[in-house]
């Protein structure tokens, strides 16, 4: 059988400039040239003769893959492994540096739902616009229009400008457009990471449905190993831009988990976005930074960030993920304090205590999230996470269970009450 996607020697090179800003201003360059003309011209000359000292970075290096019709393939790997770059190349958003890909069939991607939504336009108008951007024809959209509206469940507001929508309605409409694409090849990237748990569940359900429909090929990029193992038979593990392993999903996930436990993430703070600076992020127990958490004591997650602009529908907090990448819990400052949703400028230090005897022993990741609901996620290109290992409480009787076969997500911190009836002769 011929593959529907045939990837040959694909590499993608990025240049890293060690500048803090993403784009330059002409005035900066002019001032720079005037202030230190010697360095400036030396650098220009270096550039001209190709002796540039800029670092090159291969996001993908010699990737070869064949994907066949009807396969549902999971693509997993650490952040920066090249997963998203691969999808971006497949959709054509960014061209490869070398290599060739032959794709047979119509490709659509769910890189981000709601792409191209315009706040001034009504729900109806946005369905057409968004559908067209995602690759549907006018006729196709007209045919599916009723279905899309029905799935979104916002019939009543379909002629209201989406700027008046709640963020939940916005996401629902956006997702239902995306869910009605009927491509031969569907690329999905982390859609499931956005939105609340309920929405994630709905997405997963839709993914299940899409997967079962005849002959659709799906590439699924995710950090959620539960979802990957549920949806994909085959998986690919990427690391540092290379394909490390291809095979049955269970085996590949095993390799990935192993890799995660032996690697370490490094994060240098502070990091800055246009509107937010994260100064510090720490996990402490008994007032000291901690990686190993004793289960019998509570521990704290501390964030220290500045907001440079008044923001609306703001959320600050974190996802708590277990070793499989499943989000065990999510918690935001605004969960219990709605006054912080419309946040004023200033520096904020937030602390959350996680009670003792709550988590079962194991590895966890705490991934910081700073975003405005439905509109913007901050510091998205940085992986702001800390890995912790939680140990069982000292008084927890663990002698009979091994570390590896723990079942469940949380501990019930209460003791059983036992009443023993001693049989006596009546």
């Amino acid at each position, binding site marked *: 059988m011929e593959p529907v996607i045939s990837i040959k020697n694909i590499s993608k090179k*990025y240049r890293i400039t060690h500048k803090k800003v*993403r*784009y*330059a*201003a*002409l*005035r900066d*360059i002019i001032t720079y040239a005037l202030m230190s003309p010697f360095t400036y011209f030396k650098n220009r000359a270096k550039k001209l003769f190709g002796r540039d000292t800029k670092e090159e970075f291969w996001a993908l290096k010699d990737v070869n893959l064949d994907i066949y019709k009807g396969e549902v393939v999971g693509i997993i790997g650490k952040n920066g492994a090249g997963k998203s770059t691969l999808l*971006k*190349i*497949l*959709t*054509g*958003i*960014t*061209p*490869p*540096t*070398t*290599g*060739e*890909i*032959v*794709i*047979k*069939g*119509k*490709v659509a*991607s769910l*890189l*981000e739902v709601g*792409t*191209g939504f*315009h706040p*001034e*336009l009504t729900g109806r*108008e946005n369905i*057409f*616009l968004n559908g*067209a*951007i*995602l*690759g549907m*024809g*006018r006729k196709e959209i007209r045919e599916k229009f009723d279905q899309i509206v029905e799935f979104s469940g916002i019939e009543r507001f379909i002629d209201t400008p989406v700027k008046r929508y709640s963020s939940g309605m916005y996401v629902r409409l956006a997702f239902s457009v995306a869910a009605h694409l009927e491509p*031969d090849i569907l690329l999905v990237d982390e859609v499931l990471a956005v939105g609340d748990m309920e929405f994630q569940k709905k997405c997963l359900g839709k993914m299940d449905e899409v997967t079962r429909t005849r002959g659709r090929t799906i590439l699924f990029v995710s950090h959620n190993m539960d979802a990957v193992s549920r949806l994909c038979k085959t998986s690919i593990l990427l690391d540092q831009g290379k394909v490390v392993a291809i095979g049955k999903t269970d085996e590949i996930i095993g390799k990935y988990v192993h890799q995660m436990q032996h690697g370490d993430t490094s994060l240098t703070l502070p990091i800055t976005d246009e509107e937010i600076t994260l100064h510090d992020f720490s996990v402490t127990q008994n007032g000291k930074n901690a990686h190993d958490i004793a289960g019998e004591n509570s521990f704290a997650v501390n964030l220290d960030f500045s907001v440079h602009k008044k923001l609306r529908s703001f959320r600050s907090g974190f996802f708590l993920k277990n070793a499989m990448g499943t989000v065990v819990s999510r918690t935001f400052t605004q969960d219990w304090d709605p006054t912080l949703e419309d946040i004023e400028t200033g520096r904020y230090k937030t602390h959350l205590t996680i009670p003792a005897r709550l988590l079962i022993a194991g590895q966890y990741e705490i991934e910081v999230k700073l975003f405005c609901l439905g509109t913007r996620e901050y510091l998205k290109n940085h992986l702001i996470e800390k890995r912790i290992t939680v140990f069982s409480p000292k008084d927890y009787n663990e002698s009979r269970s091994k570390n590896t076969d723990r079942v469940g997500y949380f501990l019930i911190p209460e003791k059983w009450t036992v009443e023993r009836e001693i049989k006596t002769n009546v």
Partner: protein
Amino acid sequence: MSISVPTKIIRPKKTLSFDDLRELWEYRELLYFFSWRDIKVRYKQTIVGVAWAVFQPLIVMVVFSIFFGKLAGIPSDNIPYPIFVYSGLIFWQLFSSALSETSNTLVSNSSIITKVYFPRILLPIADTVTKFIDFCFASLILVGLMFFYGYTPSLSIIFVLPILVILTFIVAIGAGLILSSINVKYRDVRYVLPFFIQLLLFVTPVIYPLSIAGKYAWVLALNPMTGIIENARAIMLGTGMVNYHSLALSFGIGMLLLLVGIITFKKIERYFADIV
């Protein structure tokens, strides 16, 4: 549903190729939707939207007529100054608004560009479509003025006017593509541009006739908008004689701008999604 399976081949991008044209044709519906979006948004509050398109040149015309026509006494080739300046203004505004819009288009649409693929060149083209509609509304006033002052356009208007409008697009898109490519890398283009457009107005015969420049008229003629505005006046208000020399020169320079624009645009398009 189509039965044939489309095959797509992704390779490192070349700067120019004929595939681009084919691709542009494939994505024509998206062009329609982008223009439709811009028009919808522009005229959402219908009355204000249309009124704005008409009032802007009208007010400018009144102000210019008072200051340049009456007070400064700038000659206008024996055409009443209001209609003289207005005929130039509508073309000027078509050009300048299309130019400023296209130069910003990549940055303002970056959220789409980084997530979905389509030929990026659709964006600047779609932008100019709205500007054309503004132009049509503004032209209504010109028709009124022509009635008022008793001008009958020559018959050649049927052929020449569309050519002039298309030519304005070519010049605006050409220059806009160059500027938008620079804008991606150096964001201060945004600040420099309004100033630049203001200066351009003075080297374009909008508020004065080309004849005022005397023997230096050829310098002004290098500005492609000069030929366009002079010819527009000729067919609408003047002799009806098309100046083929200046038209050809405008066309030549316009095409050169467009070519350079497309090349710079295509070059930057390659790594565009990576740096926006």
